[in-house]
């Protein structure tokens, strides 16, 4: 290989892998069932079961089983909805935006991140679907010709835009993910025998690896990435419109769209880190999801953490600078009001804690990364709680001021979404290669440690002399 060897560029695939090693390492986890996997899946399914029980309880007993009240109509449900949607953003960001920027480190994590996106959006969708109160009528939200006279949905409403944004986002993410998965399912198919082969052949859609197919495949991936890039930015922008187009002080701000998008990327990357640090350990993928990958993601976390932090401070400044008494009170209430602890949690986890990543040693430490990723997710949850609950708890009329704390049913549904998320993720890890096999092979010669990095450079020099 007559390629210039760079000692500076850090290899993204270590362990001197050959193409066959890559297939072996990445596909073999789908070919055996381990006890730890079975136990983890059972635990996740149990949690999901509890969530389903709480949902049934909600519909059986009624909305009274939740602690939302007339003043605070949006509580745990919308907080969790926004939180999960935010988490869903990293997948498309990694697969689409980083594809357009030609960042090679995306190949190690994109498959799992995209899967995470799809599962997170499913968890998110559950909350507004339940929040309508009568989910069996949820199809009323879609515009369709009906016999109730001319009767249409309100296309001017941000809540309807949100429905369109999230269903589009879910569909496009699913297509993007599955299309990328097809060549890898073909790899699994060609290694399998008997019934297993038949099943994978069904889902691999008759992929052969023909040059023309690969050409179309690359063309499709690139355009889907180009379409998904504005889409991912639009989704959380529209989620923020749910708040920003209202007339409540604290919600009615123009900073919301960029602030929500940055927060979404922040929390999404944190969740990717949580999952990846565990996955790489359990499936022994340290050669494919390297410290270099983890460091890159930590840099994104540091950057978006600062964007979010700047947004928090801007909000406070603008509230003071506006001189508008209601706006000033809304922010005074956030910092010193009854939910001061949520504000501290948000500031501590989102603004202060990511600064640890200024230090290279901490950026490259897996244990610190894991705990930091949990911190960030807690912080981002607090952010949504602060925005939604704190604002609603102290509205214009002091006589209707109220306090909110979730009931066991609401907490149960939230736990249930974790169950759903992890059940689906664990099933995915079992049935499909968790790292994109074909894509890793495609970058082997430009990112493998026998081709680039310090070691390769030394070897090249030794052979030259």
């Amino acid at each position, binding site marked *: 290989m007559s390629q210039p060897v760079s000692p500076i560029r850090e290899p993204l695939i270590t362990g001197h892998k050959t193409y066959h090693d890559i297939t072996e390492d990445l596909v073999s986890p789908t070919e055996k069932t381990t006890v730890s996997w079975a136990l983890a899946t059972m635990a996740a399914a149990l949690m999901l079961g509890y969530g389903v029980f709480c949902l049934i309880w909600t519909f059986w007993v009624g909305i009274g089983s939740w602690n939302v009240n007339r003043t605070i109509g949006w509580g745990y449900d919308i907080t969790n909805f926004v939180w999960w949607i935010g988490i869903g953003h990293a997948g498309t960001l990694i697969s689409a935006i980083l594809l357009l920027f030609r960042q090679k480190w995306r190949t190690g994590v994109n498959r799992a991140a995209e899967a995470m996106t799809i599962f997170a959006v499913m968890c998110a969708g559950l909350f507004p679907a339940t929040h309508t109160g009568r989910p069996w009528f949820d199809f009323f939200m879609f515009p369709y010709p009906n016999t109730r006279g001319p009767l249409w949905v309100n296309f001017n409403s941000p809540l309807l835009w949100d429905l369109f944004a999230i269903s589009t986002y879910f569909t496009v993410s699913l297509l993007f993910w599955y299309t990328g998965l097809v060549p890898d399912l073909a790899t699994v198919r060609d290694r399998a025998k008997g019934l297993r082969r038949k099943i994978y052949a069904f889902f691999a859609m008759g992929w052969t690896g023909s*040059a023309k197919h690969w050409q179309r495949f690359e063309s499709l991936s690139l355009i889907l990435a180009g*379409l998904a890039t*504005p889409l991912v930015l639009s989704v959380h922008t529209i989620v923020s419109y749910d708040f920003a187009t209202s007339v409540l002080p604290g919600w009615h701000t123009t900073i919301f769209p960029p602030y929500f998008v940055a927060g979404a990327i922040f929390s999404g990357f944190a969740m990717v880190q949580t999952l990846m640090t565990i996955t790489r350990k359990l499936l022994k993928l340290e050669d494919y999801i390297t410290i270099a990958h983890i460091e890159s993601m930590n840099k994104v976390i540091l950057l978006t953490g600062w964007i979010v932090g700047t947004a928090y401070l801007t909000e406070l400044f603008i509230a003071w600078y506006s001189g508008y008494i209601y706006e000033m009170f809304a922010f005074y209430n956030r910092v010193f009001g009854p939910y001061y602890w949520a504000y501290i949690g948000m500031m501590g986890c989102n603004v202060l804690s990511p600064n640890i990543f200024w230090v290279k040693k901490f950026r490259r430490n897996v244990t610190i990364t894991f705990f930091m990723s949990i911190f960030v997710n807690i912080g981002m949850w607090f952010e949504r709680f602060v925005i939604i609950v704190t604002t609603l708890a102290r509205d214009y009329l002091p006589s209707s001021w109220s306090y909110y704390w979730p009931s066991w049913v609401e907490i149960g549904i939230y736990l249930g979404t974790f169950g759903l998320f992890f059940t689906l993720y664990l099933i995915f890890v079992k049935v499909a290669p968790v790292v994109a096999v074909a894509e890793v092979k495609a970058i082997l010669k430009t990112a493998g440690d026998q081709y680039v990095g310090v070691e390769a450079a030394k070897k090249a020099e030794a052979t030259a002399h």
Partner: protein
Amino acid sequence: MKKKDVLFGLYDDEEILLKAVKEARAQHLDIMDVFTPFPVHGMEQALGLAESRLHIAGFVYGLLGTLTAFLGMTWIFTKDYPIIFGGKPFWAVPSFIPITFELTVLFASIGMTVSFYIVNGQGFGVDNPTLDDRITDDKFCLAFDKAGKSEEELNRLRDFLKRTGASEVHEKTIEKK
């Protein structure tokens, strides 16, 4: 159902294959197809493949989405169901933009993906014949159609494959639907 006799060589590295493909093209050999485990950089130029027209289809689908959303909302809110929301005019163009954008993306993505599978002859349950199981693993395959070739020509192709570095040369009959 059509039977197809194929002569193919398996290479161990994509760079050797790429060189072989270039040489085959220079010698005007009739390449049936090339199969690889991942997209090989420069293969489409080497094979002289025409640019994919998928992006044109994508544009058309996207435009269809734009028009569906925008004209649909326009008709609904000016003709079929004119109602004033929050003091806005019936034809409130700025608030139609988010849904118009979303449907543009949705139509383009679904349309392009479905087109991709249709032109590839792919779909759930479709079982296209493959030449070797290792093509999706670490082998790179250059295939020639045996139909209408004399034994002498075939021998020349076999020699060509071996000479250009194929580690294995096989023949196989596949059934093409």
